[in-house]
C-alpha cells in the first residue's frame, strides 16, 4: 500500500509540477517530508481514531486543500492528457482547447457537488 502510494505520486508527477509552478526546486526535499508526514498522520488517524474538538470551520481550508490535490491527480492522469489533443484535432479547434479543458473542470466540480448534496442519502 505504502509503495503503491509513493509510486502513484511519482508517476503522475504532481510534486514535480508543483515545484515547477512555484519555482522551488531546491525545497523538494521538504516536500517529500511533507508527503511522508501527511501519510503518517493519515495512517494514525485511521487506525488510532483520535478525536479533537476543534471548530468545524477548520474543515474549510482542509477541504479546499484536499480537493486541490485530488484535482491535480485527476488532471495528471495521462489518459486525460492524451484525449485532449486528439479531440481538439478532430473537431478542428486547436486554439480553443482551453474551453474543452473548462468543460472538464466544471464537470468535476458539478459531479462532486451533485454527489455530496443530492446523490448521497
Amino acid at each position, binding site marked *: 500500500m505504502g509503495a503503491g502510494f509513493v509510486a502513484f505520486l511519482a508517476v503522475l508527477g504532481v510534486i514535480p509540477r508543483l515545484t515547477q509552478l512555484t519555482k522551488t526546486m531546491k525545497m523538494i526535499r521538504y516536500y517529500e517530508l511533507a508527503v511522508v508526514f501527511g501519510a503518517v498522520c493519515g495512517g494514525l488517524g485511521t487506525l488510532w481514531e483520535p478525536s479533537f474538538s*476543534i471548530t468545524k470551520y477548520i474543515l474549510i481550508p482542509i477541504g479546499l486543500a484536499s480537493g486541490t490535490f485530488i484535482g*491535480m491527480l485527476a488532471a495528471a492522469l495521462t489518459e486525460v492528457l492524451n484525449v485532449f489533443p486528439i479531440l481538439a484535432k478532430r*473537431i478542428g479547434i486547436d486554439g480553443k482547447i482551453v*474551453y474543452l479543458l473548462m*468543460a*472538464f473542470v466544471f*464537470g468535476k466540480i458539478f459531479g*462532486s457537488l451533485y*454527489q455530496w448534496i443530492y446523490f448521497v442519502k
Partner: protein
Amino acid sequence: MKLIVVIHTTKYKENIFLGSERMDQTVYIRLRHRIQVRKNDSIILKDIAQIIANEEVYGQLEKLHVYQVSENDNNIVVIDVMKVIQLITNSFPRADVQTIGPSQVIVGVISKKKKISFPVFLSVWLLLFIGAALTIMNFHEDVSMRIVHQRIYTILTGEVDEKPLVFQIPYSIGLGMGMILFFNHIFKKRLNEEPSPLEVEMFNYQMDLDHYVAMNENKESMKQIDDI
C-alpha cells in the same frame, strides 16, 4: 572552409566567368519542417527552405519552381530533400548542395478556412462535462470518499455528521482549482510563462502525426515488393 570558398567566388566574380577554373558554388539548404499552402498554389524553393548561396545564384535559386499544387492532391504533400537536390542540380549543374536539418518538408494544403460548427463544439463540450462528472463520482465511490470525509469530520470536531458539507463543498471547488493549477490556465490568462503539460502533449501529438506522414506519404522513404 566551404564558407571561405563562397566569399572567395563572390569577390572574384569576373574571374570566375572568364577563367577556365570555375569553382563549385556551395548552396546550403535547410528545409522547413512544415508549411501551409492554398489549392493551386505554386511552390517555389524559398517557400520550403532557407537558402544560403552566393549572390549570383541566390536570386534564381529562390524562385526555382518546386511543386505545383493541383486539385487532386491530398491535403498533405511531402517533398523529399532528394527531389529538391535533383531540381537544383538540374538547373545549376555546378552547385554543391549541402543540406542541413529535416530531410523532408510537409506541405499542408488548405482548401478553405474551416469554420467550427457550434453544435459540434457544444456536444463535445457536454460530452466532456458529463464524462468528467461521472468519472469523479465513480472515483469517489471507488475509494469510499464519503466515509473518509465523515471520518475526517469526526476526528477534527468530535461530532458525527452524515453529510459534512462544510468539508465537502470546499473540497469540490478545490477539485476544479487543482486541475486549473495543473494545466496552468485560467481561460486565456496564464499563471506563468512555461508551456503547460497540455501544450507539450499537443506538440508531441503533432510531432507524432508529422513523423507518420513524413514516412508514409513520402513514396521515396519505403520500398516494398508489390507482387502478391
